[in-house]
C-alpha cells in the first residue's frame, strides 16, 4: 500500500477528510520550502502538493504564475525540489508528498532519471497538469514500478467514459478540478460540485480530492462534505506572497488560514 493510499484509507476509517495544501516549491525562496512543509503538517494537513515552478504555467491564474516567477528567480529547479523532499523526509516519514508539474521540466530531466530520483527522495505521487492518460504511456509505468502514484485530473467537462478510463490509469486519488478555469479564478457552485463528485464516486473506487475555488473554512466544509479531500491552492500561495518579507509571521498566517479549515472538516457529521 502506498503512503497516499495508507493515509487516505486511515482517514476514511476515522470518518475524516483529507486537507491537501498546494504550494509552489521554491516560493518565496527555496530555502523556506521545507520549513513551510512542516508548518503545513503542524496545521493539520494530510498530504502536501508541491508545485514545480514552470516558465509557462498555462493552467494557472496570476497568483500561482507570480509564485512560479519568484521561485524561478531564486534558482528553483526540479532537481532542487527533489532535494527538498529528501530533506523533508529526514524528519517526516508519514506525510505523503505529491508533485504537481507541467510535463516539460520532467521530460527534460528524463522520465527514468526523474522516477529514480523522486522515488529515492521519498516522493509519493506525481500529477502532470498537461499530460492526459492517453499520452502518459512513457511515464506512468516508470512511476508505478517505483511505487509512485500517478494522479490524473477530472474536470467538469469530462465524460463518463473518460472518468472510467482515467480512473483505471490513476492510483492514490483522482483530482477533480471543480471549475472550468485556471487556478485561483471564480468561486465555485457548491451544489454543482457536489452533484458531480457524487457522480464521479459512482464511477470510480478511488478517493476523490477536489481542488480549485476552495478559499476558506466554509468552502472547505461544503466540498469536504461530499469528497474525500479538499485541495487548497491559490489562497495559500497568496498568503505566502503577502508574508514574503516577514518570514517570522508566515507560520502564524498559514496556521490562521488552515486551522479553521481543519476544524471545519473535522466538525463535519459522519456519513
Amino acid at each position, binding site marked *: 500500500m502506498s503512503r497516499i493510499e495508507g493515509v487516505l484509507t486511515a482517514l476514511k476509517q476515522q470518518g475524516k477528510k483529507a486537507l491537501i495544501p498546494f504550494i509552489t516549491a521554491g516560493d518565496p525562496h527555496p530555502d523556506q520550502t521545507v520549513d513551510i512543509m512542516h508548518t503545513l503538517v503542524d496545521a493539520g494537513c494530510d498530504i502536501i502538493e508541491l508545485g514545480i515552478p*514552470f516558465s*509557462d504555467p498555462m493552467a494557472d491564474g496570476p497568483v500561482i*504564475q507570480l509564485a512560479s516567477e519568484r521561485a524561478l528567480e531564486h534558482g528553483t529547479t526540479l532537481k532542487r525540489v527533489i532535494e527538498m523532499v529528501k530533506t523533508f523526509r529526514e524528519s517526516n516519514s508519514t506525510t505523503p508528498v505529491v508533485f504537481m508539474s507541467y510535463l*516539460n521540466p520532467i521530460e*527534460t530531466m528524463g522520465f527514468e532519471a526523474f522516477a529514480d530520483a523522486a522515488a529515492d527522495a521519498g516522493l509519493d505521487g506525481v500529477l502532470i497538469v*498537461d499530460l492526459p492518460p492517453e499520452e502518459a504511456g512513457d511515464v506512468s509505468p516508470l512511476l508505478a514500478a517505483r511505487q509512485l502514484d500517478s494522479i490524473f485530473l477530472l474536470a467538469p467537462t469530462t465524460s463518463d467514459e473518460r472518468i472510467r478510463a482515467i480512473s483505471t490509469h490513476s492510483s492514490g486519488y483522482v483530482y477533480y478540478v471543480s471549475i472550468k*478555469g485556471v487556478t485561483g479564478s471564480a468561486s465555485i457552485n457548491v451544489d454543482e460540485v457536489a452533484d458531480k463528485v457524487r457522480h464521479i464516486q459512482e464511477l470510480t473506487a478511488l478517493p476523490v480530492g477536489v481542488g480549485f475555488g476552495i478559499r476558506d473554512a466554509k468552502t472547505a466544509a461544503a466540498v469536504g462534505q461530499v469528497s474525500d479531500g479538499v485541495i487548497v491552492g491559490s489562497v495559500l500561495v497568496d498568503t505566502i506572497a503577502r508574508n514574503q518579507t516577514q518570514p517570522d509571521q508566515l507560520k502564524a498566517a498559514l496556521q490562521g488560514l488552515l486551522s479553521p479549515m481543519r476544524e471545519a472538516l473535522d466538525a463535519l457529521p459522519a456519513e
Partner: protein
Amino acid sequence: MSTKLTEDMLKAMPDSRGHFGAYGGRFVSETLMGTMLELEQQYLKLKADPDFQAQFDYDLAHYVGRPSPLYFAERLSRETGGAQIWLKREDLNHTGAHKVNNTIGQALLASFLGKKRIIAETGAGQHGVATATVCARLGLECHIYMGADDIKRQTLNVYRMKLLGATVHSVESGSRTLKDAMNEAMRDWVTNVDDTFYIIGTVAGPHPYPMLVRDFQAVIGREARAQSLEQAGKLPDALVACVGGGSNAIGLFHPFLTDESVAMYGVEAGGHGIDTGEHAAPLAAGRPGVLHGNRTYLMSDESGQISATHSVSAGLDYPGVGPEHSWLKDLGRVHYVSVTDDEALAGFRTLTSVEGIMPALESAHAVAYGVKLAAGMDAEQMVVVNVSGRGDKDIHTIAQLDGIEI
C-alpha cells in the same frame, strides 16, 4: 540523410492521436480534452464534406483573392546571378499575409460548431488581424491576446484589430511576446470552453490544430505546384519559407513532400546569431519537449524552463515550432536553416529596392536565404520563395532602425 516520403506515409501523418512520429500529440489539461476530441471528430467529418470544402474554396477565391500569383522576380534573379527566383505572393492576400487562409477555414469550422465567441493569440498581429477580419465578416465576438512588447512594435496592426471590432488584450506576463499570448489564450479557453472557439494561428497547439491549420494552408503549395508546372513547365528545384510556428512553410512544402527532386528550406530566425543564444531557432538549436499542447523541438534550458527568444520579427519570435516540422527535420526531408536579424533586414531592403515588393520582416528571412541559395545554383534552376506577408506593419520598425520618426 533523407528518407523518401510516400503518399501513404504522408496520409498516416498525423496518426489517430495526432502524432507525427515522436512529435505532436495532445498535451492539454483535462478540462480541454472533451473539446479537443469533439473538434477532431467534427473537423474530420467536415473535411470530407463537399459543402464545407466548396464554401472554403469560394471564400478563398472571392474574399481572399486567391490564387495568389507565382511571380518570376526577373531583376532580382539577374542581380543575384544564379537560379531563377520566383515569389509566391501571399502578401497579396486580403489582410496582407497567408494567415487569412487559416482563419477563413477555422471560422467556418467555428460556425459549423455553433461557437459565437472567438479567441486568438498573435505575435506580429497578422493572425490577429486575419482573425478579427473573419469575425467582423461573420459577426462573431473576437478577443485577441498579444504580448505587451509586441503591441509596442506592431502598433499599426493593433489599431487595425480594434477598427475591426476586436478586443485586444495586452499580455504582461513572462516574456510579453507570442508564447505568453498563447498561454493567456489557453487560460481564456479553459475558462470559456463551452462557447469559445480558439483560432490558433500556426501549425502548433494540441491535435488536431497542427493538422487542420496545415490542411487550410496547403492551398499555398497546391497552387504553387500547379503554377510552376504551368508557368515554368517544371517543378521547382527548391522551396524556401520562413518558420515561426511553421504554417506558411508547411503550407508551401506539404504538397511537394513526395516530389523527391524538390529541396526544401525552412528558415528560422537567427536573431543576433545562433551562437549568441539570442535567437528563435528551436530546430537549429533546441531540443524536444512539450509546450502549448504538443511535443516538438523547443528552446528550453537544462531544467526544462522555456528560454527567452529574440527576433527582430515578432511573428518568428517563438520558442517552439509545429510538430510536423520536427518530424520532417528528423527525417531529413526539409533542411532547417537560419538567417540573422541583419540578414533579414538586408533581404527586406533588397526586395523593396530591386522588385518594388516590401515583404514582412518574417518573410524577409525567407527572401534573404532564398537569394543566398539561388546565388549558388545554376541559371536553369528554379527557387520558389514564399513571401508570406507584406511589410507595411514593419515600416515603423525599419524607420526606427533608420533613426526616422514617423
